[in-house]
């Protein structure tokens, strides 16, 4: 994988299929921000990139046990930090404790 420059914020869209990440900041504003939050995309949540649709957009993510597809333009607004190494943990509760 390419090395990511620190000044370049990492968004959900940059995470390859199969990888996972932790939500840092959501740039979306207004009602849509609320919708993302309601889906469980709150700072600290773990998101796994499941697959891209045949044309590459939208992309399906595993968010709190549910597979949810977001269009890439929207996923770009979700800034994350990579968390590949927690993939093997199966329970979200246990993952969280490691970070907190």
């Amino acid at each position, binding site marked *: 994988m390419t090395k990511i420059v620190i000044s370049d914020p990492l968004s959900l869209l940059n995470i390859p299929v199969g990888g996972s990440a932790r939500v840092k900041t959501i740039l979306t504003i207004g009602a849509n921000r609320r919708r993302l939050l309601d889906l469980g995309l709150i700072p600290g949540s773990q998101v796994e990139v499941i697959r891209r649709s045949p044309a590459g957009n939208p992309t399906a993510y595993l968010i709190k046990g549910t597979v949810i597809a977001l269009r890439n333009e929207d996923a770009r607004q979700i800034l994350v930090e990579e968390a590949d190494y927690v993939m093997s943990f199966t329970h979200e*509760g246990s993952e969280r404790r490691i970070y907190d």
Partner: protein
Amino acid sequence: MSTIKNQEVPILREIEPLLPDDIANIKDRIVSSIYQQAEDISARVVKTENSYQASLEARLDGILTSRWLGFPIMLLLLTVVLWITITGANYPSQLLASGLFWIEGHLLHLFSTLGAPAWLTGILIQGMYRSLAWVVSVMLPPMAIFFPLFTLLEDLGYLPRVAFNMDNLFRRAGAHGKQCLTMCMGFGCNAAGVTSCRIIDSPRERLIAILTNTFSICNGRFPTLIALATIFMGTLIARAYSSILATLVVVAIIMTGILTTLLVSYFLSRTLLRGVPSFFVLELPPFRKPQLGQILIRSLLDRTLFVLWRAIVIAAPAGALTWILANSFVADTSVFALIAGWLDPLGQLMGMDGIILIAFLLGLPANEIILPILIMGYLSVGTMLELDSINALRLLLLDNGWTWITALCVMLFSLLHFPCGTTLYTIFKETHSARWTIVAALLPLALGILVTSMVNQGAQLIMR
């Protein structure tokens, strides 16, 4: 951003100074707190060794939405569903038709024994009963097969995968991702499809979805397409493959409809309804074992009988009206033939004739009755014959100068013309706008006239 507008209201004036400045931040904190507690509780009560990637869904989704197989599988499923419907409906359709027309014979006999006047027999038997018999025998079998199959796919959780595969096309057309779901709903019934557009929150995108819903071939139009495809396309090759070819023709018409949906959405989102696609979220739920009993009950009771009943209620008076038009004379010509004569030049331009256009006009209340009206129209101006089989219908149409070009143009016009009365009324109710309702009627009609004329001219050139 969110200031209180109504300053005269004391309750609001009183609490406003207490409100924090950063409301967006408060929202975040509220949702986070709720989720944190949900997580706490969940950690206490749930024990799991589950992981998504190893699950059956993951593997199935990998196939159904894969880059190379996603679209072919969709097309294949559509073809299989239609093929089962076409082949499966054939025999019961014939059986119903011969049964119902056997009854017609006895009814006619009864009426003549009772000495009923000819006009009464005409309106009740040749008008109302005959169109009812057609609607039931042509529509009931395909619906009773198609709806359970469609509900099965819905129950399995396949539709969201279709939306996932197709979303990129809708996104490029400037439409909402959920429009794909409302389009699928339209395959059942356009009025229902229009209502289902409520799931789209942005007014602009909802309007696009509403205006293009009629390009999903609804169940009222499937039987017409299936019958015409069987009659004209089926005879082009060996009998053994005829139902496959008929299926492929219907699939091609459906694909044309989807393409039209995308093109018109693209056009609308760049002209009348300009804007960028709004945010959308699509859940891909786990595949579920379908409940066959529930599927049968729901699809037969709620869908099949619902659509059939509406068709019957509308077909009876329309049948009577058609008979009256065909049997009221001005000088030597019937009113029906007179109107058909006026419409004939336009019909010929579009590869059809005046009677076909009348059938579409009289079919405004419900698309289901287009074929019965057409038959009655031909019968009233041509020779009388017993119409108890698909073959008889073929002969009747051939007698009236039909070729495969006529059939193709009728099928295309059936895809591209004004939505049925129920759908138009629903559009008016949903948009609260007479203007948009008129657009919804004229836009597909204009397209239909354009496309059929072009196809007709093109085909004539090729045949020459």
